[in-house]
């Protein structure tokens, strides 16, 4: 069956759904969103469900601050009756070296200037926030009480519901298999469920974005990288705040449901679409975790899973028109922090596509920055 649309959004995660909703809201006309699996079946639904405003660059601070403000009242903002399980228990970022402490203090100056309520805490104060924290070797930490948790499935569902109400057509279980162009202009998106004629495409396909780029002869420098997570049985609330350590390369939070969700980062992961779980992860994760949060040793692990980070060369998203084909827009490369900045990013991507002024300046995140050598370096990533 052949359809027509003014814009086709590829990808039904938080970024795709937020973009589609905002396109419809801002008058883009007929918007069709296509998703290969079901909504949030890719990176969004596999993420650690955290959101933080403690970043080291103005752009990331602003993107996350605005998104947090939106998430704080999302059901009202979107006029939907979906509980996104928002919990603002704070993020505690641990500093173990002088260099890290210096960087964190520099970040705090920036965050303060941008009205982000983060502060420096001593090891003793950190222990008040997370009583079971092992503070051996800890120099200090930063804490922002407004950081926290949202349910990625519910948040995506909220955007999808609001988008549908505005007339967006969401086609799940629909895979893009090709894109026809004509004189450097997008013409047709070919899917497993038929063709869609359209002059504009937004690719929010996470780790699969490069494959979509190749359909129009554009090489997008985003590669998929497997990251693993485990979850424990639910227990009574005992850890209000997310604990994150760049030194141990791990994060661990207790969800509102009571289960602990945790993951670690690896420095040299190969490019791969592999999302199978590994037993090595369980052992490494547990070993590193019980060192800094000892009482969690008593918890039962019930499940592990993996998902893809969509890594760009500077670990920051690519937003906007890419390559020589007119109407080919990218919103991907979030490199592990797409969920938490998805709400405002979708709005900005829609504004960019429609030629409207953007809510925040994101010109430095354009696709051309790698060729120019203007990498955007964020010091605070796991």
């Amino acid at each position, binding site marked *: 069956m052949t359809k027509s649309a003014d814009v086709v959004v590829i990808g039904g995660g938080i970024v795709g759904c937020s973009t589609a909703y905002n396109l419809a809201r801002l008058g883009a006309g007929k918007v069709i969103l296509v998703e290969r699996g*079901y909504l949030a079946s890719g990176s969004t639904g596999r993420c650690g469900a955290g959101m933080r405003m403690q970043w080291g660059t103005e752009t990331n601070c602003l993107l996350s601050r605005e998104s947090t403000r939106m998430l704080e009242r999302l059901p009202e903002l979107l006029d939907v009756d979906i509980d996104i399980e928002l919990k603002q228990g704070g993020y505690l970022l641990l500093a173990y070296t002088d260099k890290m402490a210096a960087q964190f203090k520099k970040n705090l100056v920036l965050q303060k200037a941008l009205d982000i309520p983060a502060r420096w805490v001593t090891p003793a104060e950190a222990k008040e926030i997370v009583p079971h924290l092992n503070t051996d070797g800890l120099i200090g930490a930063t804490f922002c009480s407004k950081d926290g948790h949202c349910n990625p499935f519910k948040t995506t569902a909220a955007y999808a519901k609001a988008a549908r109400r505005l007339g967006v057509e969401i086609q799940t279980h629909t895979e893009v298999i090709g894109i026809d162009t004509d004189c450097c202009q997008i013409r047709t998106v070919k899917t497993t469920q038929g063709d869609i004629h359209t002059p504009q495409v937004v690719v929010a396909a996470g780790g699969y974005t490069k494959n979509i780029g190749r359909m129009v002869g554009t090489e997008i420098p985003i590669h998929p990288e497997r990251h693993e997570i485990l979850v424990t*049985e639910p227990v009574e609330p005992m850890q209000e705040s997310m604990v994150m350590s760049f030194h141990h390369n791990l994060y661990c939070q207790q969800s509102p449901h009571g289960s602990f969700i945790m993951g670690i980062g690896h420095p040299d992961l190969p490019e791969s679409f592999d999302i199978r*779980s590994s037993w090595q992860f369980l052992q490494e994760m*547990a070993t590193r*975790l019980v060192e800094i949060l000892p009482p969690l040793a*008593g918890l039962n692990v*019930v499940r592990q899973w993996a998902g893809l980070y969509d890594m760009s060369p500077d670990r920051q998203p690519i937003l906007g028109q890419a390559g020589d084909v007119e109407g080919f827009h990218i919103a991907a490369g979030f490199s592990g922090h797409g969920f938490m900045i998805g709400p405002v990013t979708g709005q900005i991507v829609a504004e960019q596509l429609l030629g409207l002024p953007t809510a925040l300046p994101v010109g430095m995140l354009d696709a051309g920055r790698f060729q120019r050598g203007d990498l955007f370096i964020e010091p605070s990533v796991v």
Partner: protein
Amino acid sequence: MSDDIIICRCEDIKLSEIRDCIEQGDRTTEEIKRNCRCGMGPCQGRTCMPLVAQELAKATGKTVGELELPTFRQPVAAIKMSALAGGGEDD
């Protein structure tokens, strides 16, 4: 069968919640699992997933055999963090 009957004993998910998911458009056991937590508890869906599949089969006109079950994930049985952190060196 009463709508109040518990389908997932680990997460306390009632039949009515499964039916709500199906009514809202879920067409796979995996979507239902992710949208209402059914099967995410300590038993990892051993009890509830066949029941969820039956409900889904009724709603979609498919047979249970035609429906895919969610991915079976490690660990096979719940295991303490302390056991994992102990490593494999002394085994």
